[in-house]
C-alpha cells in the first residue's frame, strides 16, 4: 500500500500578533483518502490549524506542505485548486443574486469552460439537495440552506482535499446527517476530508482518525476507536466520548469492550452477550 502524504506540518508554531502562541509544535501528516476529525474545546486552535492547510495562515516557525509544496510562498488562490475550505459562516462568501451563480464562482476563477461549469454546478447542487433552488436569491434561503450553498460552491471545485469548519453547527439533526453523509460520500469517492466538530457522535460515526487539540498542542492523534477508549485523556480538553461509548465503558465489568462507537454495534454486542449467557432462550 502506498501511503501518499497530502498535507504535512512540521513543528508548526503560530501566534496572532504579539500574543502567546495559539499553536505550538504541531507535527502531523494527512494522507490521501483519509477522513480526519479535528476536535478540542473552544479556543483550542482547531480553526487556526485548519487555516494553515490552505495557506490562509502561514506558520510563524516550522513548515506546512500541501501536496509536497511549502505553503509559505503560495497564494491562497493557488492552493485553492488543491484544498477547498468551507467556512463556518456562509454569509462571508455569498454575493451573487442566484444560487447557481454563487456555486459557479470558484469554477470561473479556475477559468474552466462554460459547459464544464454548468455540469459541475448542476451536480453539486444535486448533491446538497438544492437543485430546485438553482435560480433562487440566496438570501431568501434559510441559514442551513445557505450553508449548503457554501458547501456546494466548494464541492463543485472538486479539490483533492476538503476542509470543513464545523459544517453541522446550526443545522438540525436531519440536516447534519445529510451533510455528514455527503462528506462520507466525498471521502468514498477519493477526496481527503478534514472536518472540525464538537459533536463526538459524528466523529464516531464518520471519521477514521481524530486529532485532539488542547491549548494549541496535539494531545492525541490516532484511530477514533482508540481515542474514545481513553476518556481520561479526553477529559483534559473537556471532551466526552459519545454517549454510546460512555455507556459501553460503564458496562465494562459485563465484558463490554470500552471502544464501542455506534448504537448498532452496541446492539449486536449485547445481543451476542445475551445469547451467550442464555437470557434470550
Amino acid at each position: 500500500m502506498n501511503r501518499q502524504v497530502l498535507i504535512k506540518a512540521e513543528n508548526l508554531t503560530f501566534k496572532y500578533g504579539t500574543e502567546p502562541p495559539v499553536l505550538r509544535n504541531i507535527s502531523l501528516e494527512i494522507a490521501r483518502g483519509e477522513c480526519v476529525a479535528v476536535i478540542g474545546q473552544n479556543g483550542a486552535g482547531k480553526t487556526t490549524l485548519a487555516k494553515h492547510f490552505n495557506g490562509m495562515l502561514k506558520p510563524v516557525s516550522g513548515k506546512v506542505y500541501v501536496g509536497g509544496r511549502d505553503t509559505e510562498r503560495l497564494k491562497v488562490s493557488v492552493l485553492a485548486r488543491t484544498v477547498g475550505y468551507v467556512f463556518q459562516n456562509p454569509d462571508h462568501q455569498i454575493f451573487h443574486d442566484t444560487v447557481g451563480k454563487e456555486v459557479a464562482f470558484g469554477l470561473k476563477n479556475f477559468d474552466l469552460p462554460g459547459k464544464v461549469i454548468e455540469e459541475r454546478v448542476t451536480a453539486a447542487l444535486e448533491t446538497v439537495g438544492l437543485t430546485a433552488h438553482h435560480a433562487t436569491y440566496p438570501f431568501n434561503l434559510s441559514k442551513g440552506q445557505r450553508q449548503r450553498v457554501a458547501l456546494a460552491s466548494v464541492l463543485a471545485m472538486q479539490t483533492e482535499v476538503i476542509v470543513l469548519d464545523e459544517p453541522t453547527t446550526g443545522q438540525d439533526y436531519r440536516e447534519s446527517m445529510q451533510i455528514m453523509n455527503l462528506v462520507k460520500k466525498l471521502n468514498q469517492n477519493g477526496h481527503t476530508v478534514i472536518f472540525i466538530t464538537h459533536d463526538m457522535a459524528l466523529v464516531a460515526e464518520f471519521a477514521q482518525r481524530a486529532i485532539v487539540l488542547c491549548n494549541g498542542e496535539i494531545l492525541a492523534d490516532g484511530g477514533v476507536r482508540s481515542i474514545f477508549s481513553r476518556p481520561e485523556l479526553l477529559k483534559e480538553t473537556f471532551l466526552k466520548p459519545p454517549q454510546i461509548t460512555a455507556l459501553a465503558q460503564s458496562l465494562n465489568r459485563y465484558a463490554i469492550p470500552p471502544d464501542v462507537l455506534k448504537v448498532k454495534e452496541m446492539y449486536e454486542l449485547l445481543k451476542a452477550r445475551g445469547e451467550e449467557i442464555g437470557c434470550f432462550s
Partner: protein
Amino acid sequence: MAALVEYIHEDSPVHRLNALTKIFWALFTLGFGLLFNDYRYLLALLASVLLVAASARVLQSLLPVISGLTVFAMILFLIQALFYNQGQVLFYLIPGVDRVPVTVQGLLSGLAMAARMMTIILSFLVFLTATRTQDIVLTLVEKFKIPYDYAFMFLTALRFIPSFLNEVKMVSDAQQARGHSIGGINPFKKIKSYAPVTIPLVLLSINKAENIAMAMETRGYCGGNRTCLRDTRMGRTDYLLTAALILLLASSATARAAGYGVM
C-alpha cells in the same frame, strides 16, 4: 488594531478626571501641535503626551499602536528630508552629480512633522482609552448639546471598527479560498475584482445594523428626554487643569505671535 479605540479600565489620576477636561486636553494638544513647527517644541509636546499616557497606565497597551505610528512617522520624515531642498546642504543622495540634496532644515522639518503627527493622534488615543464610553456620550450630550441619538450612533460606529476589520479579513479569505485573487493591471478589472469582497461586507453590515436596532428596541431604547444616573460635574482638579490649559494655550499663542517656536 482592536485596542485602538477601546476603553482600558484603570484606576489612575487621568481616568478620574472629568471627560470634558480630557477632551479639552486633547483639543489643546492639537492646538499646540499646529501652532509651532520647531522640532524642539513638538518633541517636548510628544514627551508630555507620552507622560500623560504613562500616568494613565495605558502606555503599555498603546505600544503596538505607537510602533505602527513610528513607521508612518519615519516615512513622513524621509519624504520631508528628501523633498525639502532649501537651506544648508548636508550631503547629496546622488553624490557625483550633486542631485537630491539633504539639508539640515529638511531633516529638522521632517522631524517636526513626524513628531506633530504622532502627538496629535496619540493625544486622542489616550483620551479614548482613558475615558469611559458612557462618559464621552454624556459629555457630548450634556455639555456640547449633541442629540443623544447622534452621540450614540457615533460611538457605536467607533465600537464596530475592530469587528468590521475582522470581517474584511474573513470575507477576503473566504473568497480567496475559492480561487479569487484581487489584482490585475487593468484598473476596471481591478475595481470589479473587489466586488466579491465588498458585497458580502455590505450585506453583513446592513444585517448587523438591523439586528442591533432590533435588539435595542426590544430592550426599551427610544429617543426623547433622558435622565442620567451618572454625574458629569467637574471637580476642583478639573477646573484647575482646564484653567491651566487655557492659560498655557493663550500664552503660547502670544509667544508664537512674537516669533517663538517657528523655524
